[in-house]
C-alpha cells in the first residue's frame, strides 16, 4: 500500500530525513519509535503533504502511485489520514460542520453527491459513540479550549468518520490519561481491517500495549536504523535509546 524508497526531505534547507525505506502492506500496523528530533513527525508530515517540507530525493508511493506532487487534500482523498500531534484550534468552525465539509469535499473529489443529511447524522452519532464523545462536544468550535485528551479523541473521531486507507497517528498517546488512551486505542482497533493500515508514531511503548504493532522501526537521525517486531518496543522501553545511538555511531 505504502512504499517509501530512499526518502530525503528537508525544511528550510535543513536535511531532516536522510534516506527512509519503509513498506506498509494492507492490514499491517507499524510502529515508528525514536528519540526526540529523530524525524518522526517530519516523516508523518511529509507523507501527509505538508508544503514546508521539501522532498529532495526518493519517492513515496501510495498504491504504486508517486504522491510527491499531490496536494495535502488530494492525498486525503486517496485515503491518507494524519492524526496530529498538536491538533490546530479553529474558532468559529464546529466539529460537526468541519466533518461535514471534509466528508463532502472528499466525496466531491470522487465524483459523488453530498452525503444526505440523515446519513451524516447517523454516521456522526455512531462514530461519536465509538469514541465516547458527548454530543454537546460536537457543536463546539474545533479544538478550541479542548483538553489535550479531548483533542486526541477528536482526532480519532475524525479518522473514524473519514475511514482512511492509511492512518498515521503522530504521538497520539501524548497528553492522554490511561482511560482516554484505552478509548482512543479501542477506537483505532475497531477501525482496523485487512484493507487498511496504521502507522503509529510514538516515543513510548505504552500505546503499543493497546495497539499491537506487527513491526517496530527505530528512527534515528533521519534514517530507520533498526526494525523488528513488538519485542523491540519492549527492549527500547527497558534500555532507552542510547544503545541504538551507540550501535549506529559505532
Amino acid at each position, binding site marked *: 500500500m505504502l512504499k517509501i524508497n530512499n526518502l530525503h526531505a528537508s525544511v528550510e534547507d535543513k536535511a531532516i530525513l536522510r534516506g527512509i525505506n519503509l513498506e506498509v502492506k494492507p492490514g499491517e500496523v507499524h510502529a515508528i519509535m525514536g528519540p526526540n528530533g529523530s524525524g518522526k513527525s517530519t516523516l508523518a508530515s511529509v507523507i*501527509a*503533504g*505538508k*508544503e*514546508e517540507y521539501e522532498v529532495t530525493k526518493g519517492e513515496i508511493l501510495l498504491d504504486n502511485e508517486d504522491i510527491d506532487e499531490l*496536494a*495535502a*487534500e488530494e*492525498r*486525503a*482523498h486517496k485515503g*491518507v*489520514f*494524519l492524526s*496530529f500531534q498538536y*491538533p*490546530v484550534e*479553529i*474558532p*468559529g*468552525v*464546529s466539529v460537526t*460542520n*468541519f466533518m*461535514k*465539509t*471534509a*466528508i463532502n*469535499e*472528499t466525496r466531491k*473529489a470522487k465524483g459523488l453527491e*453530498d452525503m444526505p443529511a440523515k446519513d451524516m447524522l447517523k454516521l456522526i452519532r455512531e462514530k461519536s459513540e465509538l469514541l465516547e464523545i458527548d454530543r454537546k462536544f460536537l457543536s463546539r*468550535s474545533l479544538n478550541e479550549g479542548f483538553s489535550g485528551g479531548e483533542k486526541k479523541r477528536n482526532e480519532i473521531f*475524525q479518522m473514524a468518520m*473519514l475511514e482512511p486507507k492509511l492512518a498515521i497517528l503522530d504521538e497520539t498517546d501524548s497528553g492522554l490519561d490511561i482511560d482516554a488512551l484505552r478509548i482512543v486505542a479501542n477506537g483505532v482497533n475497531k477501525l482496523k481491517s485487512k484493507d487498511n493500515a496504521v502507522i503509529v508514531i510514538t516515543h513510548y511503548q505504552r500505546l503499543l500495549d493497546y495497539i499491537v504493532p506487527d513491526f517496530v522501526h527505530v528512527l534515528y537521525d533521519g534514517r530507520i536504523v533498526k526494525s523488528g517486531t513488538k519485542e523491540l518496543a519492549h527492549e527500547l522501553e527497558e534500555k532507552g535509546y542510547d544503545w541504538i545511538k551507540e550501535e549506529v555511531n559505532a
Partner: protein
Amino acid sequence: MELKDKLVSSFMAFENMVDIDAPVHDVRSEAIKSFEDLGFPTKRDEAWKYTSLNSLLKHDYSVFPKQENSLEFSDVKRYFIHDIDSYKIVFIDGKYASNLSQTTHDGIDVCLMSSALSKPKYRLIIENYFNKAATKDSLSSLNTAFSQEGAYIHIPKNKIVEKPIQIIHFSSGKESALLLQPRNLIVVEENAHVQIMERHQSLTDNAVLTNSVTEIFANKRAIVDYYKLQNDKPTASLIDNTFIKQKRESHASVHTFSFGGQLTRNNLNFYQEGERIDSTLKGVTIIGDKQHVDHNTLVHHIQPNCESHQDYKGIFSDRSTGVFNGKVVVDKIAQKTNAFQANNNILLSDKASINTKPQLEIFADDVKCSHGCTIGQLDDSAMFYMRSRGIPEKEAKALLMFAFSNNVLDSVKIPEIKQRITKIIATKLGVDIGFDL
C-alpha cells in the same frame, strides 16, 4: 465654488425652508459658524491621518434635491430585512417615503425628525436631548446646521419594543451628485428596550455622500441594540457620526457591517455616564477594489464599575484600505473599569493595507484594560490541518475567513439579521454554506 463655500452659502436658502423661530434654529446657526471656522477635516488632522475626503469633496453636490421621488416596495424589497415584522422609516433622497414606511405613535414614537422639531408635544425632549451628545467637530456641525429630517424614536419607560425598527435611506440617482445629511434622535427611557437597524443604499452609479448624525440616549437600565449595514455602491460614501450616552446599568451595542461603498468612515462614540454600564462595539469589514473603511471609535468611561467590549475584524483584498482607530478613555474616578479592545485583520493582497491604532488614556489605577491588534495572512498550520482532512485550499481558505469574521455575529440578537449578514459574508468570501457554522 468649493463645497465648503457652497454649503455655507446654502444655509441662507435653508433658512427660507425651515422655521427659524424654532429653538433649534439657534443651534443650527451656531453650528454653521463652527463648520465655517473648521472646514472639512484634512489629513493634517490627527483623526483623519489615514482617510482623505479630497476625492469626495470635488463633486458638485445637490444639497436640496429638487424633485420628490418615489419607489415601489417590490423594487427595493431586497434592501429591507423583509422576513420580519418591523417598523420602518424610509427616505428617498432625504425626503420621507410614506409608502415604504411604517411609523407609529402607539405607546412609542417612531416617526420623523422634521415633525419632532416642529410639533410642541416633542418640545421638551428636543430641548433635553437634541445636539446634547453630538460633538462640535466640523462634520457633526455641518450636519447639525442642516438638521431637519431623519428618524425620531422615543421609547417610554418600561416599554419593550418587540418589533425592530429599520431606518433606510435610498438615493435614487435623479441628481448627478447628492449630499445627504440625515439627523436621527433616539431616546430610550428607563428600563425600555429597542432594536434598530440602519442602512444607506444608492440605487444608481451617481455620486452620493452621506454625512449622518445619530444621537442615542440610553437611560437607566435601558437596552439598545443597533445594527448598521453598510453594503453600498462603489460610488456612494458615508460619514457616520454616532453618539451614544448611557445612564447607569444600561446596555448598548452597535454592530457595524461594512461590505461596500467608496469611502466609509464610522465615528462611533460612547459616553458612560453612570455605573454598571455595558457598551459593545463590534464590526466586520470585508472589502476589495479600492474601497476604504475607517472605524474611529471612542469609549469614554466616566463612572466606575463599567464594561466595554470592542471587537473589529477586517478582511481586505485588492487595493482596499482600512483604518481602525480605537480610543478608550478611563477617567480618574472610573475605578473597576473593564475595557477590552480587539482588532484583527487579514490582508489578502500585497496592495491592500490596514492602519490600526489603539489609543488608551487611563487615569484610574484599578482597572482592567486590554487591547490587541493583529494583521496577518491566514494561519498556515490551520490551512494544512484542514487540507489534510480533504478540504481543498480554496474552500479551506474561505471557511477560515468565514469563521474569522463570523465570530462577531454571535452577539447579534435578531436571527434574521444574523442570517442575512452570514449570507452576505459567505457570498463575499465565496463559501457555499449549506449549514450553520
